[in-house]
């Protein structure tokens, strides 16, 4: 019996629209990826506020301090159990900023504290920063609109 030979060229689908769409999706995700998220510690629930100002651009030099519910501080992915022990890390940050010609008073310290943490611990953390001549603090909250 003789079978008709199929034409293989007819089976090739046109991939152009699919590739176009895929590249569009990749471009979208690449532009929306936020590397600053790396500084956020997920278990910290920020207090809510409707009056807080959204961050205006990127600060000259910023130090992000995460304070969790039990009073541990996270800085650069490092967990410090007691607030008193954070001093060497703050000194390192201040020196790094000074090498870039930025005075400690111009460094923005972003405090991301859990809503149920003790207020005294937040004050203690701020006090540690003040001892290193840091004076510009941004208390970060979740926008509630």
């Amino acid at each position: 019996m003789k079978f008709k030979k199929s034409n293989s060229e007819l089976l090739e689908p046109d991939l152009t629209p699919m590739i176009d769409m895929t590249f569009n999706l990749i471009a979208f995700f690449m532009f929306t990826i936020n590397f600053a998220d790396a500084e956020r510690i997920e278990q910290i629930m920020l207090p809510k506020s409707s009056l807080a100002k959204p961050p205006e651009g990127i600060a000259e030099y910023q130090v992000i301090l995460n304070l969790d519910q039990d009073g541990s501080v996270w800085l650069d992915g490092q967990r410090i159990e007691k607030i008193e022990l954070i001093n060497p890390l703050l000194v390192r940050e201040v020196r790094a900023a000074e090498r870039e010609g930025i005075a400690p008073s111009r460094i923005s310290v972003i405090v991301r504290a859990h809503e149920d943490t003790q207020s005294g611990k937040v004050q203690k953390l701020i006090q540690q920063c003040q001892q290193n001549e840091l004076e510009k603090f941004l208390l970060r909250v979740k926008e509630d609109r």
Partner: protein
Amino acid sequence: MKLGRRRKSEDLKINMTAMIDIVFQLLIFFILTFKVAALEGDFEVKMPLASTNPSSMDEVLPTVIHVGLTAGVNRDIASIEIDDGTQALTFTQSDMFQQLTGFVESVVAREGDPSMASEVEVEFDIADELRYRFTVKAIEAVSGRVLPDGTVKKLVNKIKFTQPQE
């Protein structure tokens, strides 16, 4: 005249399989790492360590409102104590934060235009064990008020804390 042989169109085909594989892997990576982050905002607090230099005689001293936050059952807020030098009040009702805003608003109105007169400053004395959310609520209460039309009326932007109790 005959100009060379006609080119075969099949020779121009590029094998796209490898590229499509990589592109899909990238797409899957981005989809899996995509996170819709909640919007965040800041309260700016400028707090240098207390200066040792005596202030000059010409300098206009700001009006300081002392605000004390006390903690009660379950580390929730129990009362707000206010003292601006002329009167001292204590708020204990559930609308204490609105009362605080009202008080600060009256002091700011009394002092006139902050850019012309001495500025108003708020100093917080907070109970150590108080939940941080109440501290933020108090900072919000002195920072401004949302008007019925949705705009924000700014009140005080100079905020400081007293030294924490041990």
